[in-house]
């Protein structure tokens, strides 16, 4: 009998040993972290995952000797993880591609204010959180793309005009599950109030060329396929398509014109990717250094142009392609309102039946 009990115990011990062995490894890692803490490491939770980001982190390490440890994931899930980890979290900096998520991080009390003259100099005030909890790093506009053959640019004016009778069955946009649409509607809630925002959403649903499906690029393709004539898309997707490895995608993009709506009224909707220092950060100074590095002119150029985005640093010119689209007037609202109205916008989408 003892023999069998022994077997089971041995098995359990084996499993525990496997876990324990791992824990030991962790131990040595954390020990080295203790000794070098505050000087040699910064832990980044990021929802932005372009290959060029890794190159920038490597460059940062080269310049400062600070190693950037990265966990890449989806914004909401990373936030949830930081929240659950509480005071013990390893995260120092949280980076994501939507102002609404930055707002939520702040609202959930996960970020801390940081002040740095360099950051103030490099990031314009309207792309910073009012309490300096987060800083924008790149920006993008949500614009109208139109079929050069069937639509003249002078037919277009505003987002609101797309709900007119004339566009019935011609408008393309992706599902309301996507955060860019939620932020767009949130901006209308901020500017025009809930009632009008809801009217706009209902009017859009009414004019849909088809039930929303696919991503932003798919809306452009649907124009080429003749399913609709105008699409609402983020600028960088248009940039990506123009530079695609697939000649067919380039052809589609070349058939499209870009239009910045609401130039005579409230301005085109813009959103940022940005980052904030985590409240329980143990390497705060390093996190600030990384923020400063990413908003400095050298990094801004690569950081923004990698994804055909606009740099936030005003001393940096956008890439040639973006310059060719011309300058434009942006919505003049605090970006945190995109987050404040996020939940409201989802409820509206559900109510008007925007899939």
């Amino acid at each position: 009998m003892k023999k069998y009990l022994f077997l089971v115990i041995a098995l359990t011990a084996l499993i525990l040993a496997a876990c324990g062995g791992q824990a030991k490894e962790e131990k040595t890692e954390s020990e080295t972290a203790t000794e070098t803490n505050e000087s040699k490491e910064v832990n980044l939770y990021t929802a932005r995952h372009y290959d060029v980001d890794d190159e920038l982190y490597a460059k940062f390490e080269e310049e400062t000797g600070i190693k950037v440890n990265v966990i890449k994931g989806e914004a909401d899930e990373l936030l949830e993880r930081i929240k659950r980890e509480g005071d013990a979290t390893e995260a120092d900096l949280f980076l994501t591609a939507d102002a609404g998520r930055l707002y939520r991080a702040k609202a959930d009390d996960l970020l801390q204010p940081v002040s740095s003259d360099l950051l103030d100099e490099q990031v314009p005030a309207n792309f910073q959180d009012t309490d300096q909890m987060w800083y924008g790093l790149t920006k993008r506009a949500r614009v109208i793309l139109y079929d050069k053959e069937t639509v003249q640019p002078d037919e277009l004016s505003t987002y609101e005009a797309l709900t007119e009778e004339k566009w019935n069955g011609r408008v393309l946009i992706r599902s309301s599950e996507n955060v860019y649409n939620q932020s767009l509607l949130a901006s209308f809630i901020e500017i025009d109030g809930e009632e009008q925002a809801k009217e706009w959403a209902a009017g859009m649903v009414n004019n849909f060329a088809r039930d929303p499906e696919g991503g932003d690029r798919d809306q452009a393709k649907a124009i080429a396929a003749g399913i609709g004539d105008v699409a609402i898309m983020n600028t960088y997707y248009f940039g990506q398509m123009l530079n695609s490895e697939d000649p067919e995608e380039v052809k589609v993009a070349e058939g499209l014109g870009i239009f910045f709506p609401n130039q005579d009224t409230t301005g085109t909707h813009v959103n940022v990717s940005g980052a904030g220092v985590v409240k329980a950060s143990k390497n705060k100074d390093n996190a600030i250094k990384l923020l400063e590095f990413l908003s400095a002119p050298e990094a801004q150029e690569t950081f923004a142009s990698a994804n055909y985005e606009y740099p936030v640093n005003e001393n940096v010119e956008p890439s040639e392609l973006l310059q060719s689209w011309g300058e434009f007037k942006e919505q003049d609202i605090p970006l945190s309102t995109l987050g404040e109205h996020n939940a409201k916008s989802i409820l509206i989408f559900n109510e008007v039946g925007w899939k």
Partner: protein
Amino acid sequence: MQHRFTNINAWTVSAVIIIFLLFLPNLTIVTGLFTPSNENWEHMKEFVLWGFMKNSLILTAASAFFTILIGLSLAWLIAQYDFPMRHFLKWALILPLSIPPFIGAYTYHGMLSYTGVIQTTLRENFGMAINPAYFDIMNLPGAVFIYTMFLFPYVYSIAQVYLSRQSASLIESTRILGKGPWKTFFQVVLPISRISIIAGASLVVLEVLNDYGVVKYYGVQTFTTAIFQSWFGLGDIESAIKLAASLMGFVILILMIEKILRGRRQYSYSSTKVRPLPLIPLSGWKAAAATGYGFVILSLAFVIPVAQLIDWTVLTYGTIPMGEFMNYVKNSVFVAGLSATLIIVFALIVGNFARMVRGRLGKLLPRLTVLGYSIPGAVIAVAVVTAFIGLDRFLTPFYVWAGFSTTLVLSVSIVLLVTAYIIRFFAIGYNSIETGYDKIGTDFRDASRTLGLGVTKTFFKVDMPMMKGAIISGFILVFIDVLKEIPLTLILRPFNFDTLSTKAFQYASDEKIMEASQASLLIIGISALAIVFFYKFLERELD
């Protein structure tokens, strides 16, 4: 007598501990059922919930139906008849499992879209401008097609092994009695292979219920959509967990139905040497039809998407950094191998417990561990993180004593990720092991016990050798699933830890499906190798 009793206890104790540990994180979710409903919940109920549920039901029912139709018909052809290329198709038809459904979904959409190879070729080479709406795969039927194509091997592989080996004598008897093939199929094959069909189909159903990648991209709103909408959109994790708990309740219902449908199992081996079924040769158009059918399915579910991925890899070659790819391969294989090994060991213990224990409750207990497979990965992730942080807090005094600088040790290590995999994929391994135990029945064990061998000795000397096939098939299935897994790996990985699937997802989520092709092909390649190895092993076992 006392001797035997204590042995059972040792197995029982470890089995109950495993079940408890696997179920523990799910408790976070179960408690969600009892939180009072808030405004968001009411809103969801009023506007969207019923529509989402309807979609989910149609999606799962249709996927189950078509996977059974295709999986079982192929299994039957391969098990019963001989036709050209049968030998090749027999293992090649498992290959579609190696393609992650979300990659399949992106690939098919890429091919069928306006800029895809099909419409482009028609336009440019034949001057045909067919209504692009005909090529639209991004809808509910499209999602059913994707699930059917990339999940039917679950039904096929289990049913095929079963039909070729298990049912040989029964089917032979029917033949001798002069029944035609259709009658044989409906009156004998279908009833006796019920267990294996249900085992395969329930994996399909669970997989469809927890998937988010395919339906999100295709714009099909399901129950999972509701979970993520309340969590991410409304920032209301309570409603999200409440929804997940309801989903879990639904899954428990399915599992109970499955158990009832399995009913009294009475078709276990009657001799240790299982005779394979003698094949009926097909000729002429019948042979051509059988081969053709196999190849049509194989092309749709494997050859065509892989060819497209290869094409994209060539197109984008050199545009993305490849230097770290060996590392991704190493990481992927390491976590998949470790998780699969642990799952099989646990499943063997729990499965052995399940067949020894008497009483309904005891039989049902192991089924609880299967729950993890039904819940969307992101929700499991939260449950596991919560459990581990609790554990770390509990261990904090020890950490302090040991001089650690941080109080989060386990929850930032790979232990977290591997545990989550085990909770998530235990069902897959357990299903194989349980089917294996079912197949060998209890006669041999009872004989061995009567002859005086203890439970543990019987297990290693009598059961294990007969279980080899089940162990390896379970291992391979889990291994492939971990390799393909995405939400858990994304959320729970330690710092600077990338796998092939996180890499593929990284590009795909940015709508860069062409750039995702390299990593996808590597996932498919490694999984395919594992499948080939499995097949070769089975062959040797049978001969």
